[in-house]
């Protein structure tokens, strides 16, 4: 169960990443942000985002052209 949800549908890079950065700032360590995006580039972007920030990419997947990510704040 996510602690916060971010709807980034219809937004192209870098807006989903920028929104995620701001959302994660409002979370406590260990809490999870659930993101929904439609930009195919967001898959690579969120992998890079987690690698560089140290936050954990708990899960990612695609469903009907929508990409979903769960990121746990470090």
């Amino acid at each position, binding site marked *: 169960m996510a602690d916060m949800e971010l709807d980034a549908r219809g*937004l192209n890079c870098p807006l989903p990443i*920028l929104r995620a950065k701001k959302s994660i700032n409002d979370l406590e360590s260990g809490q999870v942000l659930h993101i929904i995006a439609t930009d195919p580039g967001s898959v690579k972007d969120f992998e890079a985002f987690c690698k560089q920030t140290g936050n954990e990419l708990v899960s990612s997947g695609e469903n009907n052209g929508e990409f979903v990510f769960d990121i746990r704040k470090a």
Partner: protein
Amino acid sequence: MTKRLKAAERRATILAVAKVLFADKGYHGVSVDEIAKRLGVSPAVLYQHFPSKEALYESVLNEISEKRESYVDTILTEPSDFKSVLLGMAQLFVNSISRDPDYLRMELMSALEDAPAAQHFFENRWRSFADYIEVGLKELAAEGRASDVNPKAASLMFQGMIRELLYVKCIQGNERYKGMALNSLLEQMVDLFLAAIGYKQAA
């Protein structure tokens, strides 16, 4: 090395050489013989990988138009205000194109030819700026930190500005702007854009 890997490498080499020639002379200015000669192979080798010059050109365009910049570093290293992100994105983009202006040449050619690739160039290259400016401007206007300007007109103005900067500095090499460094010009143009939209930094 496996045969398949060799074939993939050969294909990549053909695409790289063809890109340089097409970017320089356009589709009609380059023959298959010339590409083969530059590669040091016979035209028959080229036809093993691409059935026609048109197919080769389309492959070059497709490969180039699929290239996207990643702005993750920009987002993570720059402050998150509208100006810092926009300038950071523009700097990354302009410096990337200036290292290989053939990308811009091919984009301009595809625009003239009305190729479907022209739409890919927009989706993969310019849409990041269009979305960022249009969404950002709506939020800024709601906070009273930008004038009530049309977001689409503003984003188009920005795209045109960046494209012209790259054209003048990286392709045309116009003497008139020789004394002005690319990044310095970019910063001044971004400031002009921000003034045009009535941008106010958060208090």
